[in-house]
């Protein structure tokens, strides 16, 4: 499912753009949203379910600030011989605490992943296990010192320079 590009209608884009700006904690939040977009509540909920099924919507609901509930995160990089990437990725991805993992273009550090866990001890334990299981010793552990911005809104309605509109949220690591 992921990887294939979905075909979004103009209504979908309006709907997702409105949703990205956020909805209110009211008894019928989707009715309010539907009025904004010019759809019925029933049609909007049905379309949201489809967009979720199609994989366009990764998650809907409360975007939690993980640090505020005691979680801590880090960004790590490993130097993996290209032919070993699938096998090493399997080890890394086996931890539910690993939330993102990408191959990136760099001559040395080519596998970049984020860990989100309840403690530094748990993060260090995961890293130690990954090193032991894969035998890869060249790695970076780069915990965040300060967050200037987390925002994963995408500009769905055109003009690049106004990306997303509201200055804000995201599923932060």
């Amino acid at each position, binding site marked *: 499912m*992921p*990887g294939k590009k*979905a075909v*979004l209608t103009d209504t979908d884009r309006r709907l*997702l753009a409105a949703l*990205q700006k*956020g*909805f209110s904690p009211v*008894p*019928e939040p*989707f009715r309010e949203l539907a009025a904004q977009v010019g759809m019925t*509540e029933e049609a909007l*909920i049905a379309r949201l379910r489809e967009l979720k099924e*199609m*994989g*366009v*919507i*990764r*998650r*809907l*609901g*409360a*975007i*939690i*600030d*993980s640090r*505020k*509930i005691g979680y801590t995160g880090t*960004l790590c990089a490993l130097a993996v011989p290209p032919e070993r990437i699938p096998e090493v*990725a399997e080890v*890394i*991805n086996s931890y*539910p*605490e*690993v*939330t*993102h993992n*990408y*191959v*990136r*273009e*760099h001559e040395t550090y080519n*596998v970049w*992943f984020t860990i989100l866990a309840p403690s530094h001890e748990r993060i260090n334990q995961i890293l130690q296990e990954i090193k032991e299981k894969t035998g890869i010793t060249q790695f*970076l552990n*780069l915990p965040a*010192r300060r*967050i*200037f*911005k*987390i925002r*994963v*809104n*995408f500009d*769905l309605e055109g003009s*690049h320079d106004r*990306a*997303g509109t509201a*200055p804000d949220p995201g*599923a932060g690591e």
Partner: protein
Amino acid sequence: MTEQEQRLILELGNNFPLTSRPFREIGKRVGMSEEAVIAKVKEYLEKGIIRRLSVALRQQHVGFTANAMVVWRVPPERVEEVGKKLASFPEVTHCYERLPTPEWPYNLYTMIHRPRREECWEIIRKLSSAVGVKDFLVLFSTQELKRSNPQYFTERGEEGE
């Protein structure tokens, strides 16, 4: 945080119902009234525990396939100023300060998502000249190996994807 609050946060974050009265539905699951759930959500929004009620999209599906992580090497005394300046650009979705290491001297990290690489480069050139920092690397992603929702309050490994 009580066990009920933890369950509430899980339901709100990872299991939000697509129904007409979502907070009533969540209340049923965790043993709270609709009003009590809404009051808690407002409290969490105020405290910043919930950043907002919103949506996370899979960027490939909405056409933002080029994903550039730009790592900047900034003199320590300029980190605050440059970090704030980079974060002020709407094209920058994430901006973090991270401690440099001897083998990796970069201390500011920004993410840029665009439909095409050339557009990323255009933005990166604009950022570089705006902050006057020429020492940076651009790491484009070539493959997504994993992208999952954070798992809170679960027994390790119990709850996967």
